[in-house]
């Protein structure tokens, strides 16, 4: 049985405060209220260490200092292969998309995005994970 969008528990990883706030607002527009936030990759991974079972899906920015989204994803995939992972990218070149796909991203979304696009991508991620 698939989880309803509004019941999703999401970990949002984004280093820029305003971008994170924007995504949070969009998620709240979709009636998603259980949103956990991390401002960099390390924080995200240490949060997952203790609360892994509590999270249904991760939304993570690609371009972050210290640890990129792809590095977070690679670390995550060493311990878990099925956690849905939506990569947020400002880059739109083919190479980076191929790289993201090959490191096990469930779907990616290109910046800037609307809440409708975000909703579509969340549904895609849920569908792919259920399949």
């Amino acid at each position, binding site marked *: 049985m698939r989880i309803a969008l509004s019941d999703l528990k999401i970990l949002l990883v984004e280093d820029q405060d305003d971008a994170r706030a924007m995504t949070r607002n969009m998620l709240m527009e979709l009636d998603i209220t259980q949103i956990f936030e991390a401002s960099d990759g390390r924080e995200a991974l240490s949060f997952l260490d203790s609360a892994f079972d509590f999270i249904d899906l991760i939304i993570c920015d690609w371009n972050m200092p210290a640890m990129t989204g792809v590095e977070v994803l690679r670390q995550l995939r060493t311990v878990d292969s099925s956690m849905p992972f939506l990569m947020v990218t400002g*880059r*739109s*070149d083919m190479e980076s998309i191929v790289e993201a796909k090959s490191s096990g991203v469930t779907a990616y979304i290109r910046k800037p995005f609307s809440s409708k*696009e975000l909703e579509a991508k969340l*549904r*895609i991620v849920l*569908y*792919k994970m259920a399949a």
Partner: protein
Amino acid sequence: MFTQLYFCISIVTVTLVASIAVAAVVVVREKRRNKSYIRALEQASDFTGNGLIFFNESDKLMSVNAQARDFLQDIFVVLDSEVSLPALLDSLFDHAVDCDQSLLNALGRSAEKLNTIGFREVIMASRERLCLIEAQKIPDVGTNIILIDVGDIKHQEELLLRLSQYNHELDQAIQVATSGIVIAKPDEKGQNYTVSFANNAFCKIFELKDGEIIGQDLVEIFEDIHDPQALRKIKKIGIEQETGNVELCRKPSEGGEHWYDLKLTPLKDYSGRLELFVGIINETTESKIHAAESSKAQRLEALGQLAAGVAHDFNNVLSIIDGYARISARNIENKEQAIDNLEHIRTASKRGASLIKQMLTFSHHEIVDLTVVNLGEMMREQDMLLKPLLGASVNCELLVDDDEMYVECPAENITQILMNLVVNARDAMPNGGELRVENSVCAQEALPEILKKQGDDIRYASILVSDTGSGMPIEVLDRVFEPFFTTKDQGKGTGLGLSMVYGLVKQIGGHIDVRSAPDQGTEIKVFMPLTTKVPKKLSGSADELGSIRFDGYTFLVAEDEPDLLFLICEMLEDLGVNVIRASNGDEALALQDDYEGQIDLLLTDVVMPELNGPDLAEMIAALHPSIGIIFMSGYPDKGQAASVAMPKDSVFVPKPVDYGALIHVIYDKLRGQNGTKSVSHWESKDKEQNMEGVKT
């Protein structure tokens, strides 16, 4: 009595004398016979070219043949019966080329003892000939000495020695070479190659010991590198038996990457049969790093220029946004003005976004949705747009070759390329002039070198834009594709035009050639690779249903009724459509996410479980703003009966689906998308058919 005695004595004497005489005759005969035997032997050995000397058992010279005299004529002024064996041996010692222990032994001892020893020695005979002397004592008979001319053999020996020295030197040189060198021999079938030689450098690269590598299969050694692409190439060279270069990347256990250039050369015999494969391998890691660094430096320099230019334009955008936001914040109660200001902010944001898009295009980082366009058709369509840009003083000649020239690139790119080139040409002719735009398929031999290198199998079309304007000096020509480089007055050009054209053309694997000189006009030729793919082609006429086809288009069809989905998709595929089939809304979303090409149309059922048609359409439209959307509905009033909110201006096809009507609706929708015709005239028909086809 006396007489009798005398008679007797006489008889005895006569008999004795006769006997002696007979004996003497016998001895003489015997001697003669021996002499003639010896002479015959001498002649026979002369005939073989060998010398023969014979001493009797008391070391007295008995016989010398002519050849022996010839060999030894400098050594013995007279080689006659006076010469004894010991004297001969003494002389030989003086002439020995490399004095053998056996000869010394023979000399140190008496000639009698020679019988147990014998000897063999090479001497320098007369006229500087090398001669092998073999002596053998035959007990109770004498000593035989045979002389054989060994000049040739000695020469060969020397050659062999020199050759082995040469080989040794070569081997040392090959062993100290920094290039890895390997030699492999083919097996009988010519399928496998066994290593017969590898130098130190080669062994070091592959971390193998000399002993381990000999006899190994050549391909197996390269297999250890784990570079599948390189390995395929190596195998191909082995099969085709042609010279080839392969770039190898090796990741050794201690980490890092090592790059190598491997050259494999087959060596064949006169009949063309493969004898050897010689491989020479050189490490290229350093030069590769160097090249990457220098290209990075160049990119950084370009980026610096780009950043400086963008900063200017981008700051303008930001100050507009900032300005209107401030005004609004000060006077937030004035709602009308705030809305107005927000509109300005949105417009400025769009300008910023399009600036970014231009830059990404230049840096080849923008994903493009490729479509197949017909160059000639595109040019005709542009004609209407281009003419008004030119003004009255410029005479424009558009020469369209209508042969099929299909190029895979976004249609708007062709528009942008043409626009930029034509505007530049116009600006180069402020006092008017001739502008010519023409397309053609390029002859392979007339292609620029850079394109010839891409392979013989790629064909190119070109668009030539030429003007009779002011032309460009060489220093401008060199920088013409640099971003933000412009010769136009400030405010008249951004300097992004030609650099964008450059980016667009490179993105599709093309090339630009510019020819110009001051006052000689300019010729810009854009080369674009031709594709064999079918272009999107909406063919046929609305009046004749059977004639309509949608070749090259891609549709996403979402329908939860399996039979209907099947029937619709089969029908569309028959009309040339590439169909992505989805049995519900969520599947449709996921499938389009995985699809990498452009989707032209979404055909969806309205009522579906979980994600309904309109919601799906809204999301798809958010992801693909240019997609066309058609709903299929079993409800007469566009879905309202099913409590589904429909978007405005939705295009409907009633259920049960009348395929003819569906084809017409799609045809109109696509024509509308192509910007040639709108959909409207079907609206009324829809309604009529809706009413007919409701109750199912």
